């Protein structure tokens, strides 16, 4: 089987396992009807809701229905959105489907993660290359300090520090929210820190490796300008570890965005998930997790694809590649 196809099948399987896990956890944490209506609800109201939601059917049947609905893109209706607060109304009201709500939060998350990625990647490549060009110089040391600091800093804490300095003390940028590029700066910086550190370390070591190879000396000997030696000759060959680490960081970036969103009240999927958890909106949480998981898997597939394109020598079928 072609390598990419095999990877795709593996991903589908992984997604299936994850979705099943989400279902099981959803049933373990408690009675959804009780969670929805609260402990003050009457027994008849609870029974009625269980009936409506199919909760009185055997668990395996619920599972099959759940899967069947998923395949049709139906993640269920929100326990909260579209319901009035009155339990009696709740029984009659048609809840809003959760999937469109989750999907509507995607652009904000993408904007944040994408900005952070571009920021982290381009800075990391420049810093890593500089460090590799002048090993053990002050530039190298500076890059080392920057990358170590940004890898080890706790995102949550970094976000708060940035808010305190730039929003509270200096009053330059908003503390949180959404709408303008000013709103984007602090959360993107916060999110970019970790990938910046990790990617720049990989760029540095991969470039050091490449720059010591004979073809680099040969390129210099034939009169190729140094910028081209570094950014074309060496970087092209260093790109495989760099793409790999960036791909790894990409999935981390998506999950990291969830946290950063809550710090900066950035209305993406992360904020929605946290809010929904707080509101005990089980379908919304399930849909959110599934969408995020699907995204992470898609990203990994895309990275694998980029990998095959970048390296003409890789024989995809006998490569013991990324897990």
């Amino acid at each position, binding site marked *: 089987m072609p390598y990419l196809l095999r990877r795709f099948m593996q991903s589908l399987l992984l997604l299936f396992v994850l979705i099943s896990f989400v279902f099981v956890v959803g049933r373990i944490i408690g009675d959804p009807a009780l969670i929805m209506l609260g402990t003050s609800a009457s027994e008849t109201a609870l029974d009625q809701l269980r009936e409506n939601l199919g909760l009185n059917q055997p668990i395996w049947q619920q599972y099959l229905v759940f899967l069947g609905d998923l395949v049709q893109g139906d993640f269920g209706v929100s326990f909260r959105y579209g319901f009035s607060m009155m339990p009696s109304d709740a029984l009659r009201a048609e809840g809003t489907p959760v999937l469109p709500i989750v999907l509507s939060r995607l652009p904000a998350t993408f904007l944040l993660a994408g900005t952070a990625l571009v920021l982290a990647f381009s800075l990391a490549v420049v810093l890593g290359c500089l460090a590799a060009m002048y090993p053990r110089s002050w530039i190298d040391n500076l890059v080392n300090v920057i990358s170590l600091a940004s890898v080890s800093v706790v995102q949550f804490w970094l976000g708060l520090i940035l808010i305190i300095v730039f929003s509270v003390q200096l009053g330059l940028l908003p503390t949180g929210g959404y709408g303008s590029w000013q709103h984007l700066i602090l959360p993107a910086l916060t999110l970019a820190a970790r990938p910046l550190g990790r990617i720049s370390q990989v760029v540095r070591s991969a470039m050091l490796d490449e720059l010591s*190879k*004979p*073809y680099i*000396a*040969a*390129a*210099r*000997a*034939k*009169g*190729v*300008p*140094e910028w*081209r030696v570094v950014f074309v*000759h060496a970087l*092209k*060959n260093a790109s495989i570890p760099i793409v790999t680490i960036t791909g790894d960081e990409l999935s981390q970036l998506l999950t990291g965005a969830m946290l950063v969103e809550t710090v900066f009240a950035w209305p993406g999927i992360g904020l929605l998930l946290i809010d929904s958890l707080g509101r005990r909106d089980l379908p919304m949480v399930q849909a959110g997790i599934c969408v995020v998981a699907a995204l992470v898997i898609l990203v990994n597939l895309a990275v694998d694809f980029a990998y095959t394109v970048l*390296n*003409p*020598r890789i024989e995809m079928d006998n490569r013991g590649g990324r897990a």
Partner: protein
Amino acid sequence: MRAMQPYETLDAVPAPLLDIRDLRVSFDTPHGLVKAVGGVSWSLSPGETLGIIGESGSGKSVGLEAIMGLIKSPPGHVSGQVLFDGRDVLTMAERDRRQLRGEKIAMIFQDAMSALNPSLTVGTQIAEVYRLRRKCSQAEAERKAIELMDRVKIPSAKTRVGCYPHEFSGGMCQRVMIATALALNPQILIADEPTTALDVTVQRQIMTLLAELQREDGMALVLITHDLGLVAETVDRAMVMYAGRIVESGPVDALFETPTHPYTRGLIRSMPRLDGASGALHAIGGTPPAAGRMPRGCAFHPRCEQRVDRCLTERPNLRMVAKGQAAACHLAEETRHD
């Protein structure tokens, strides 16, 4: 010390293309300063073929990298003069030096496969500097690459111009390297053991090709090799290096007929007599000194059978022993008379 180096006398022709004077290269290492090249002087005339012979670690490659301005500092230190057409390569701006590389002096390497960038097509690599310097279009660069591939006799150049180095054999890679070196019609081609990694028949083909190209273009060729047979066949003049210094130099016939320095004699004696494929350099007893621990006096004395007391304390300088032939040995003059 420098004044005693009779480099003027080593010049073959009045106006040398390349004139190396007292070139020294050393490296900072964790174990202290390592002297890789300890003051060598030589020159090269237009169109001449010069051979450089010496055991591994004798400073052949480092010396030539220094000439190309390729020694990185730190950890390297280079001193002396490298005059190309009268201009000192070592003191000129990096810009000018880069201009010189490719345009005036080109270099090919021992392991052509690893000297080619694995992720650029051979066509791109062959015409890369041509394209940058001549500011031509991609299509024109490709035409140039095909033309050069034809010149170095790579079959079906048109279809293979877009191939990657791993799709070529070792010999074909060396041809690609040569084509790359020829792109800007350099006046000097430095070949650092161009055939060591290849099997015998391919070695012959590459050497024939180099000789042919040299005849057509009138390039000067500096050939580093372990292969004394190759030296005897191809070069006009040869230099023997030992522990970072020239121990003997001269016209190749004279070197083979009347070798003066005990080391050169040992080398020639160790050459296989009948059509042996390559001359092994290992038949001389002992091993060369590590670059960090140079013996006092003559660096060769621990291995020399003719050693006298002076050899332990006093370093012999190069001196003329015959027309165009010089040797660095305390016994050199006596040798000439017997």
